[in-house]
């Protein structure tokens, strides 16, 4: 077993807005091992991106705050890092690939200059060396005519190309971990697979860990060693990918897996959806967040917040009806109601 790189425990990040406290992340726990890939899945607003922003400590100033929990990266507590240490942590230890490649590059600087700037910020090299490294990295991510591209502005490239540039920039500093926040959502379908493959290749080559945030369960199956399911800011289930797909335990995960279109489905069949809407994040925290949409809900579910428990080694779930002694089986008649 390889060692742990990142351990997040009971992370709570709240947004303090004029209309109340929004519990964007309200109890997220997971562990990412060296060289592995973990997927975070969940619908929009479930706290995926806020979790990522919390890990690199880039929350909107004044409004967003980590109120509880620990983020342990190779023995350092990220929450306690000072400004200077954070600069070395971001970019060097951990690189982030954002959803929209067009807005994650500075539009008014040439690509080459941006890459050189970042390399020089983290490594003790001259500008010429940095330039060479940048060209090398561009070549590695499969950008044709890298020297020429160094002189391009971001708007002169396609979305897929930009995302490659960002990946090149990320790998330049050989980070221990890459956070990919929906890296393919803004791209054409044909380019999506290429970008993911590229990520995987680089991971194999450099033994980097990847935290992949997505709402595409197919991508998770293909890329990830472990998966965490987030719902309304809370970890509801967390296991290795095979287990989660083979034996999902949380009713929300069931719904999520069902709502995935399958090739085997009849062409005209309707997509399965989970009825209802997620709760307002300003009002959560008094019961199971899935209570109003859960077909298996019991009285207790509406009164207590379920703890995240390890039902089997490596398989965590937060549901009142799932624990070591008591197993809820899918499709079971909801007798207690």
């Amino acid at each position: 077993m390889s060692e742990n790189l990142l351990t997040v425990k009971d992370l709570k990040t709240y947004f303090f807005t004029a209309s109340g406290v929004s519990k964007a992340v309200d109890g997220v726990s997971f562990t990412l091992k060296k060289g592995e890939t973990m997927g975070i899945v969940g619908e929009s607003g479930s706290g995926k991106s806020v979790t990522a922003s919390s890990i690199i400590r880039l929350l909107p100033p004044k409004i967003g705050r980590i109120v509880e929990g620990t983020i342990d990266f190779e023995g350092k507590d990220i929450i306690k890092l000072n400004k200077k240490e954070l600069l070395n942590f971001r970019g060097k230890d951990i690189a982030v690939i954002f959803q929209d490649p067009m807005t994650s590059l500075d539009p008014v600087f040439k690509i080459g200059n941006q890459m050189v700037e970042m390399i020089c910020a983290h490594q003790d090299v001259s500008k010429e060396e940095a330039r060479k490294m940048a060209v090398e990295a561009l070549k590695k991510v499969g950008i044709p005519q890298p020297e020429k591209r160094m002189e391009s502005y971001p708007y002169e490239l396609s979305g897929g190309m930009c995302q490659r540039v960002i990946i090149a920039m990320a790998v330049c500093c050989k980070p221990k971990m890459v956070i990919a926040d929906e890296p393919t959502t803004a791209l054409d379908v044909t380019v999506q697979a290429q970008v993911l493959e590229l990520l995987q290749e680089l991971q194999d080559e450099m033994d980097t860990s990847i935290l992949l945030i997505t709402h595409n369960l197919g991508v998770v199956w293909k890329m990830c060693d472990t998966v965490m399911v987030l719902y309304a800011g809370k970890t509801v289930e967390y296991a290795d990918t095979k287990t989660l797909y083979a034996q999902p335990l949380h009713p929300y995960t069931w719904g999520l897996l069902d709502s995935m279109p399958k090739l085997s489905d009849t062409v005209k069949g309707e997509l399965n959806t989970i009825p209802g809407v997620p709760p307002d994040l300003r009002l959560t925290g008094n019961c199971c967040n899935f209570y109003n949409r859960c077909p298996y809900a019991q009285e207790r579910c509406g009164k207590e917040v379920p703890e995240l428990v390890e039902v089997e080694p490596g398989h965590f779930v937060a549901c009142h009806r799932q624990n070591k002694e008591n197993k809820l089986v899918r499709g079971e008649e909801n007798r207690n109601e």
Partner: protein
Amino acid sequence: MLKTIVKRILQSIPTLLIVVTFTFILTRMIPGNPALTMLGPQAPKESVEQLEEELGLNKSKGEQYVIYLKQILKGDFGRSYSYNQSVVELIKERIPNTLVITLTSLLIALVLGMIVGIVSAVRQYSILDYIFMVLALIGVSMPIFWLGLMLVLVFSVNLGWLPAMGMGSMAKGVWDVVSHMILPCFCLSTIPMATFARITRSSMLEVVNNDAVKALRARGLREGVVIWKHALKNALPPIVTVLGLQLASAFTGAILTESIFSWPGMGTLIVSAIDNRDYALIQGVVLFTAIVFVVINLIVDIVYTVINPRVSYESGKGGN
């Protein structure tokens, strides 16, 4: 990019033509007979008529317009009767004086205003931000000539530290030149400074909160680099636009400032031209200023294309 620039240059030609025509119409509308004004009310009828013929005033308005256009193309702006000098010469004489105080003031205003704006944006809602923004608002709300009078009152009349009138001469040393410039420049730079501070703040705020800046921070770049290099360059376009507008209004400000501090520039020239009903001079100065304006706007637009490469890319957004 070149295409945008050429298009912009071509666009300003009709504007120039309109400016030239407006000036002609407006100056012809000023009441009173220029020939009569020049010679005085007691002048004999014959000499008035003779002068009218010399000036081409007895020709039809259409002919006058054609002659006027021809003269302008030749760079001839006519002759000022009150100074008894050619208008072009007068402008040539005065324009450096105006440029000295306008450009110095604008430079001071731009640098200080931008610093204030950036600091305010970075520390949004802090006490410093509030103080700066209240001061900036007072700055843009002040009539410039009142500020000038108050400066004279405090620093010349009451404290006696600085001269209130005229321009210093190098013969009396550098301090003489500088001391004469302090008050006019202070006066002239206040409003643009406040404007720059306000626009820089709002433009920076827009940039600082966007995704690109978040991505830059995620790269582990120092906050100084993120703000002063990346965010600032992204925030520049509106500031450049305002710089263009300020160049224009600084000239207006100069007219008033000069008349308060008796600074021998274009401002005092036009005021005296109006007082003397010196039509050729009024027409010349107005025309000259307007042409300068069109050219400044043109330059601003070109600079805009250069600092913001997206403009020429998203074609058509370069002009107005």
